[in-house]
């Protein structure tokens, strides 16, 4: 494997800054890697070769002219295809938007463009980010580079697979109930769900507005921290954007120490339903953390038992409203009914029947029910109260701990089709550890904590709202400790891929 695609984003940034190689070389190497591996992984819905190389050339020119550029300038990045890109098809993984070319720019892409990161393409996802396997994409399954018979997780499955498959050094995902952290766990990469409002949602196609958050993803904690620093910051176009200064996430990742840190293990998130291999890897990681000087305690968050229930009322309710606009009138797919009169109403119904997949329809119908007159208080209203209780539990836990920890997911990456056999609720249980952070708005990070039967296990760290910096203070040194104890998880994969 060429060295450039095996490097971390920060290594690439350093090499670009020193003139060791050019952004065009780095970008071309990744485009070549994508071309060579896409048949296997299918991480991308759209690859934007020309655009990426244009950006790379422009950055190289600026560098040779001695102009000041962003530290990550010239380092390629992949965007989940839920991020609006002006002039570049943006599909949300749905037939509904198969040919939609946005006439405006998202704040996330504006920042990436301004900083000069070549965009390699738009990565695959479960339709409108609904799913945790990327099997619900209208553009085919993305396969897990660790084992092509297994899912990469989801909904940011393409973003995670692109990292694990060494197609991109950085990825931008989104996380509504775990959609960044769980695929990161399944692919042995690092995924961060920042505090709600840390990164602008303007131009991020909405799934559930009060839960959605953009997440930086990389192959190391430091890479994710650097990308988070680039993307975060107040945006007047997003009313829920935090007005806070962006702290030095990268510094925190580099200088943080485990010594003296108190890690609270959430009692509710390590018991039943967790694979033995996941539990073992998690326990081993806790031992490594303890050995490095961290204090491990157990905390009780009883309301978390109800978080999944609340999530599966709030999320579909917001989905049912956010996805109403896909009606075939203004943009996207329009389908006329095969029989009967052609009216605005029948065209809307036929368009939505043809344009949405089953999982999206299921959630829209569920949300419509939960918001209906007569059910609102019992369902949506009660779920919003659970949200308060979850926040209270976290607040209490954080009063005595610096961060909270759990396995990111109860299992490692499932085989394709595994979920089709399960009832919908069993399926949703896979999100049990990641959902509470979205309900409470707090930040979470998943980093690799070893392997179970050849597949990566994720270790989740949660911090109080607006204290994202704590994630990096703990994850940085924990990653280092885990790597010195058991080696770098992704190296196993890299060796395997090279052997092929």
């Amino acid at each position, binding site marked *: 494997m060429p060295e450039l695609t095996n490097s971390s984003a920060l290594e690439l940034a350093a090499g670009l800054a020193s003139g060791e190689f050019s952004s065009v070389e780095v970008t071309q190497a990744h485009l070549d890697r994508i071309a060579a591996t896409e048949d296997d992984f299918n991480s991308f819905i759209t690859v934007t070769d020309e655009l990426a190389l244009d950006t790379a050339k422009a950055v190289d020119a600026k560098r040779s002219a001695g102009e000041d550029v962003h530290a990550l300038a010239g380092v390629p990045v992949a965007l989940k295809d839920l991020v609006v890109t002006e002039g570049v098809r943006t599909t949300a993984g749905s037939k509904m938007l198969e040919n939609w070319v946005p006439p405006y720019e998202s704040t996330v892409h504006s920042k990436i463009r301004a900083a000069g990161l070549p965009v390699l393409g738009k990565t695959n996802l479960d339709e409108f980010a609904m799913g945790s396997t990327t099997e619900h994409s209208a553009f085919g399954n993305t396969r897990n580079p660790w084992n092509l018979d297994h899912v990469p997780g989801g909904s940011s499955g393409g973003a995670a697979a692109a990292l694990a498959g060494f197609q991109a050094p950085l990825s931008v995902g989104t996380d509504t109930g775990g959609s960044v952290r769980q695929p990161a766990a399944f692919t042995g990469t690092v995924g961060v769900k920042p505090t*709600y409002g840390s990164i602008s949602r303007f131009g991020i196609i909405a799934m559930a507005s009060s839960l959605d958050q953009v997440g930086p993803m990389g192959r190391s904690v430091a890479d994710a921290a650097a990308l988070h620093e680039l993307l975060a910051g107040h945006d007047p176009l997003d009313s829920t954007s935090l007005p806070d200064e962006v702290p030095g996430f990268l510094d925190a990742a580099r200088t943080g120490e485990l010594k003296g840190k108190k890690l609270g293990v959430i009692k509710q998130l390590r018991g039943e339903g967790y694979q033995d291999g996941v539990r073992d890897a998690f326990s081993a990681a806790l031992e490594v953390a303890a050995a490095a000087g961290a204090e491990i305690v157990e905390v009780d968050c009883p309301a978390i038992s109800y978080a999944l229930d609340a999530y599966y009322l709030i999320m579909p309710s917001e989905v049912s409203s956010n996805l109403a606009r896909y009606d075939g009138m203004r*943009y996207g797919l329009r389908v006329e009914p095969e029989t009967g009169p052609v009216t*605005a109403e029948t065209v809307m119904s036929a368009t939505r029947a043809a344009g949405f997949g089953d999982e999206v329809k299921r959630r829209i119908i569920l949300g419509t*029910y939960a918001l209906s007159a007569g059910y609102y208080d019992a369902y949506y209203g*009660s779920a919003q*109260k659970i949200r*308060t209780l979850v926040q209270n539990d976290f607040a209490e836990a954080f009063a005595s701990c610096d961060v909270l920890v759990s396995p990111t997911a109860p299992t490692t990456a499932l085989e394709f089709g595994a979920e089709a056999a399960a009832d*919908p609720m069993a399926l949703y249980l896979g999100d049990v550890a990641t959902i509470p952070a979205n309900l409470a708005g707090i930040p979470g990070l998943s980093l690799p904590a070893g392997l179970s039967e050849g597949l990566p296990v994720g270790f989740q760290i949660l911090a109080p709202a607006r204290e994202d910096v704590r994630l990096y203070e703990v994850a940085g040194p924990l990653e280092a400790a885990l790597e010195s104890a058991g080696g770098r998880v992704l190296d196993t994969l890299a060796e395997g891929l090279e052997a092929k």
Partner: protein
Amino acid sequence: MTESSAITPEQVEHLASLSRIAMSEDELKSLAGDLTTILGNVARVNEVAGDDVPATSHPIPLTNVMRPDVVGPTLSSEQALAAAPAAADDKFLVPQILGEE
């Protein structure tokens, strides 16, 4: 959840109509089953939180986020209509509208 609170295909049909999704009989039946299962699991949210617990609609408590009344950039009608399934006279062309608001 008791048998009587099972979601019927007829109820799903109504919900599908409210959410403008044409559905076959099979889909209605299958979704009725799914909804019954899901709601059977999540219905307990109703029993957990009492009247004294406030509802949280926004995870981070911000208030009074407003913008000044200043005109910003707009889309041209060409940009707006570029993705339209059908257009005429610089307007979006939509099928005949029955029923009114």
